[in-house]
């Protein structure tokens, strides 16, 4: 996978993850172009489109579009599966996720994505394992935080 974008129906970018090195300018251009193309498609249309020399796989969940770019050889259906998995993970983590969850906790959304995909490849296919890793990392963070606040109090 080359990159993943999340954007709202209004075309606002909610999350972006690039697995190929590109300049900021290029990224912005691609984002703008894709958001436009995908939003222009009618609801009954299929989830795939060819774009430049890549294939775009997108899916809409409520008000959010999840959009992935894959290479010519890649499997579109498994990419849809990846998108779906990610949505399920977000759902489990936030408890019936909505767009606002992702806006206000965007770093968490990234952490979950990073536990699920690495370098554009699925690293963990078990939802349970991903959530476990996130929970434990969060726990570590909590511990850190409390010790930090205690430290501040003491000093």
């Amino acid at each position, binding site marked *: 996978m080359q990159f993943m974008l999340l954007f709202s129906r209004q075309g606002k970018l909610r999350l972006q993850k690039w697995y190929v090195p590109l300049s900021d300018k290029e990224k912005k251009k691609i984002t703008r172009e894709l958001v436009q193309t995908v939003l222009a498609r009618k609801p009954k249309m299929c989830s795939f489109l060819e774009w430049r020399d890549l294939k775009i796989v997108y899916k809409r969940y409520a008000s959010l579009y999840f959009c992935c770019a894959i290479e010519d*050889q890649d499997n579109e259906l498994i990419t849809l599966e990846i998108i779906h998995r990610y949505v399920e993970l977000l759902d489990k983590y936030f408890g019936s996720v909505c767009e606002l969850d992702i806006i206000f906790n965007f*770093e968490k959304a990234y952490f979950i994505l990073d536990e699920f995909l690495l*370098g554009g490849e699925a690293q963990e296919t078990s939802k349970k394992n991903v959530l476990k890793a996130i929970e434990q990392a969060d726990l570590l963070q909590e511990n*850190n935080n409390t010790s930090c606040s205690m430290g501040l109090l003491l000093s």
Partner: protein
Amino acid sequence: MALKIVKGSIDRMFDKNLQDLVRGIRNHKEDEAKYISTCIDEIKQELKQDNIAVKANAVCKLTYLQMLGYDVSWAAFNIVEVMSSSKFTYKRIGYLAASQCFHEGTDVIMLTTNQIRKDLSSPNQYDTGVALTGLSCFVTPDLARDLANDIMTLMSHTKPYIRKKAVLIMYKVFLKYPESLRPAFPRLKEKLEDPDPGVQSAAVNVICELARRNPKNYLSLAPLFFKLMTSSTNNWVLIKIIKLFGALTPLEPRLGKKLIEPLTNLIHSTSAMSLLYECVNTVIAVLISLSSGMPNHSASIQLCVQKLRILIEDSDQNLKYLGLLAMSKILKTHPKSVQSHKDLILQCLDDKDESIRLRALDLLYGMVSKKNLMEIVKKLMLHVDKAEGTTYRDELLTKIIDICSQSNYQYITNFEWYISILVELTRLEGTRHGHLIASQMLDVAIRVKAIRGFAVAQMATLLDNAHLLTGNTQRNGICEVLYAAAWICGEFSEHLEDPMQTLEAMLRPKVATLPGHIQAVYVQNAAKLFATVLQKHEGETDSQAAQETSQLLIDRLPLFVQSANLEVQERASCILQLVKYIQKLQQKNVEVAEEVTALFAGELNPVAPKAQKKVPIPEGLDLDAWINEPPSESESEDEKPKVVFAKEEPKHYRSRHTEVDEKELARRREVRKQEQANNPFYIKASPSSQKVYDAPGVEHIPVVQIDLSVPLKVPGMPMSDQYLKLEEERRQKEKAERKKKEKKKKREKRGKGRKADSGPESEEDITPAHQVDIVTEEMPENALPSDDDDKDPNDPHKALDIDLDKPLADSEKLPVRTHRPEVLKSPAEDRDSKSVPQETKKKSSKEKKEKKKDKEKDRKQIKPTVHWFPVQKSSKHKKKKQKKEKEEKEKKKKKRHHHHHHHGDAGGEDSVQNGTVEEEEPLPPMSNYSLLAENSYIKMVYDIQGNHQDESKVVVSVIFENKSDSFLKSMEFNVLDSLNSKLQRPEGAGPHDGLTVPFQLPPGVSNEARFVFSVQSIVMPQKLKGTLTFIVKSDESSTHEKLDFKLHFTCTSYLITTPCYSDAYAKLLESGDLKGSSLRLEGINMPFHHLLARICFHHHFSVVERIDSCASMYSRSIQGHHVCLLVKTSDQTVSIDAKCDEPSLLGNVLDEIKQTFSKC
């Protein structure tokens, strides 16, 4: 509760957290930019504070702003600061920010190398995790080079969580630093059999990605993947493997044959659409690669087509789309199987989803034949009429033209029909493809001579009705076809029925509204028509009419002389003068027609688009050399102003030019022709193509004998449909005739005993309605056959085309961080190393403290020694620990001492001893292959590997390297079997027959062959004598040679690297089934982790746990014996306590370990 309050107050201390920022942005929708600029100012203030928590909060906000499109590159250094925080909370935010904001151009990335290395080796797996994740996003070639070795070590980490990430990120490292591929590949390969499914799937992912780009280097892994494919149930893994096979089969057709069966089984059994789709795709790829060798896979193709039909018929748009996509792949090799589903595909043209309609169109492109072209195009024309939205309609239009013109108009049997189609397409309003239609009209009219008459008639009608087409005068609009129409009518004016009428149409005042380039063609071709008309009138000695024609031009042309378009103006004024002169001559009753026609004499031949590019540069011609001495700079500057004042001259020149009389013109033309004939660089009609035109018959084989296909004289626009009807009738008629003939022939042929073909109408049977001669485009003589400029030189995967089967050379080791940089360095490295030591110094004191803490934590968590000495009590345990710590400190001091010592006198020694301070010291390169035998012709090295699947077999991989200048062939490998170990020979071979090595060796080439041995007992090492015989073939002679060798089956070679969890390891030791033994090695002065790596590498162990200078290791034999080691080191002495359920095996393994270390 109390904590919460504390946290709350601290949160308030931060000026604004992320949530506040987001909320603020949402509340300032009107003046967002202004609001954010104040926020950025705040963030800048926050970043200046010392408190890391405040900084992290600021960086987190920046990451959000970066996503909104704001430039945050100025904060790159602050991001690095946050990354370096020891607190996981902040580190996590820092790495996230880095992964979102850093790219190859970010210069602070250089500074992160050490921090990342530290995080990678952190005892906390989540620290390592975030570092790996972040690195995967911003890894640069420098980072990849410096960290490759660290990441490679992590591939054997005890935690599957880390192993899995490390394996995946290796792919990014390979891309950035291709040199790391070969050294890291053996370990990557090992991970394919990792006990953790996640790690295994990661390894499959990486190898599949690598192999897809450069499949030929991964062919040797095919058996392993085949095994994985048949055993795995994880669809994610299966998809990857199947995709990999799709890439491998074109290189190894035998593999394809093997694959068909399991793949078809999967197709039948799986319920996962993604897997089904992948299988179908791969089966198609396999069949494509097999199609030359094995034609009989119609069952599989049928199965695929059936499954795809189900997909296409599904109501899910996604499946429909993919079904069509896959269908188009089958189409390329098995068009017949797809053609039978034409109905389904034509149905898809009615789908409401445009992307599906386009896919269906693509399919149609490949499905046409001579037989069905007209029918399909008719359907498409209907869709053109119905289509909503210009994009789709334009797409249809281009597809129709593509379909018809594909492979040099191969499927068109009736060009009149095609011209009619083109003319009908001109009725589309608002299309952007006027130019495309125009170029088709030109192409057909120029290249198909027989059609010119018809084409000219149609074009004349178009010109007559030009007002219908001029509604849209934008560039590339439909009016472009007038360009073609005017040119065709002018150039082939001899075919015009009423040239006068066309001439009149071309000079209408309305023409002046057309785009300039079209007007120019109008004017030029009006002149051509004028010549034709003159000739006609003079032939009829109707001088009155001729003069009227001249007058018409003189009346109408001034409109064009005033044109704003330079080209139009120039041509018009030129021709106007000419006509005026002609009129003068006409008034004197001079016959001018012949001379006027001579202006446009000669035929224009089509020239291939690439012709100019392909003219070979003649020998001795240097295009870069100056023809004249280059003018000096000052001169050219002087000249420039002059040009400004020289404006009037050209006008003068022009008027003179037009007054030159016809004879002079003709003479000059002759001279020019002569010049051109002598000029080797002028592209002229080659004699061969000239022949085509001169050949008798082309011109005269007009329109067959059948009256029906004579051009339809439909006034106005033609109807292509009528051609369709006619065509059908014609074909039936022909068929009937042919049958008659065949009957006759049969009667004749029966005597000869040959079978006549009387099957259904085949492609070849359809004769074209017109005898057409499609003139090929001209190419210069000696044109180069093809230029391969298609390949992208920037493809990063190109660099990974590396042979992985060759044994590792010493020069290929991964770069390691040496304490003191070597003398020879590239400037880039220099820069790096300068910044690195400073950083380490700064942090070293802090780091030490942290490290100590971490170590203590670590001990509490893992307690490895408990497994080993289960009876010991905790108090003793503690003492021992303290003692060990002391020992360690001492050791460190000593080591440092050593280090200086080495630098003092042994600078030239290998890297193992060169600066061994920290454990992170990277490994020297190692190879498992050891020398088998060698002579002046050939060198053999070998490695023995077992696998868990078969407890009585080991595989000996032998690399044969041809050292001579001759060709080595007919190599035969033979071994004298013992009772215990036998070489596996093919069925039917005798027990003493040798095995043929399945390749030959050209000079200097090496290749690897594998031999399977069966073994009964593995507790003892064994040596087998053997011989390699081969023929040395040089230019003059060939000789038989042989080379004796001894294959040494060590006990180590029966061990297989098997990772073990620490709890399982503890249980194993507690079970008491294992017998102990021990070993002491003196004088080992390599770093501990080198020592462990050597044991892992050479003796197939894996580290279960490691604390400081103590490590527990595990391995398993092919027959399931557990071998456990506890390795401790202190002061150049290494003691190994070992346990195994088979004492003699253990004894031998320990002996072998001892030997390994005595060698170095």
